[in-house]
């Protein structure tokens, strides 16, 4: 009987210790439904230009929950679908969504100017920001998150095809990588996990 009684106490102690440990690493463990990447990916960091032409860094988005997605504006199918789905997710979050930003990073620096990016992202959601940069800066950001993209010439008319990482990386308001969503992830799960990160009652 006695050992049984002490067990809940030990368990609590263990939980408390784990909480302290993880707390020490900086982020509160949250019951995410999507792939949890807390502690496995570096903090949000980049040097790019936003869609108003202003130079920005990852630090400029501290205080916001960030949804990072790579794509390009000459992408008429998958990129718009993903951004349209993210818009629905933002709508479902209601006023909490004001604490989040969709960062759409162009992997096509040759064609995507801040002006084109501005028109493109705003056609989906007012809380979306288009980011452009030279090939090296974009590559640095992409590599940082083990994401990839390629450009290959397609036809004789000089156009080229782009393939790009389909994942959405979610960062908390301290710029820490928290969850990874694939395009097939359910909207409910994304809303659920963003809610955990955005609700000050859950994640102060």
């Amino acid at each position, binding site marked *: 009987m006695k050992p049984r009684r002490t067990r809940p106490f030990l368990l609590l102690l263990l939980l408390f210790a784990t909480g302290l440990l993880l707390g020490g690493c900086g982020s509160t463990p949250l019951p995410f439904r999507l792939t949890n990447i807390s502690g496995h990916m570096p903090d949000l960091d980049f040097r790019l230009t936003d869609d108003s032409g202003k130079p920005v860094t990852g630090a400029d988005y501290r205080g916001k929950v960030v949804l990072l997605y790579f794509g390009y504006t000459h992408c*008429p199918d*998958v990129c718009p679908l993903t951004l349209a789905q993210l818009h629905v997710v933002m709508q479902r979050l209601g006023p909490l969504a004001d604490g989040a930003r969709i960062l759409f990073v162009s992997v096509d620096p040759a064609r995507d100017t801040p002006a084109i990016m501005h028109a493109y992202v705003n056609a989906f959601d007012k809380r979306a920001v288009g980011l452009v940069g030279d090939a090296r800066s974009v590559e640095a950001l992409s590599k940082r998150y083990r994401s990839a993209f390629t450009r290959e010439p397609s036809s004789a008319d000089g156009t080229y*095809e782009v*393939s790009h990482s389909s994942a959405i990386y979610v960062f908390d308001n301290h710029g820490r990588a928290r969850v990874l969503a694939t395009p097939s992830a359910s909207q409910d799960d994304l809303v659920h996990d963003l809610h955990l990160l955005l609700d000050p009652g859950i994640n102060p």
Partner: protein
Amino acid sequence: MKPSRLSLLLAGLLLAGGAHAAAADHVRASHAWIRVLPGALPAGAYVTLENDGDQPVALSGADSTVYADVMLHRSSTAGGMSRMSMVDSLEVPAHGKAVLAPAGYHLMLMQPKAPVKAGDTVRLTLKFTDGSTLATDFVARPANALDDTGH
């Protein structure tokens, strides 16, 4: 008797011809819509094709007076990467259907000659591999639409 026999034969030939009618005659298009993107950016067009014939038919592309170039494309995701590739044709099985929908098959509309805005109707002439065509009206939807119903 002879003339009527001839006319029967002719009628028979016509019927036989009917059985091998153009692919487009057996295809019904529905849920036709275009996702409009800003400026002169390429847009994706989507449609559901139903074939009530006994033979499979194949879509090979489309023509439009509004866009300088239209291509049949397919998006795919493998190994965490998304890509688009050109396809020669898309089969619509006998008594079956083929769906062009986001993240799969689509008609890529390039170089609009005049701005297309949400709410517009754009006529595309769908082309089949036997050379037959089907004029179809596509409704232009906003960039952040998820399907043809406006959700």
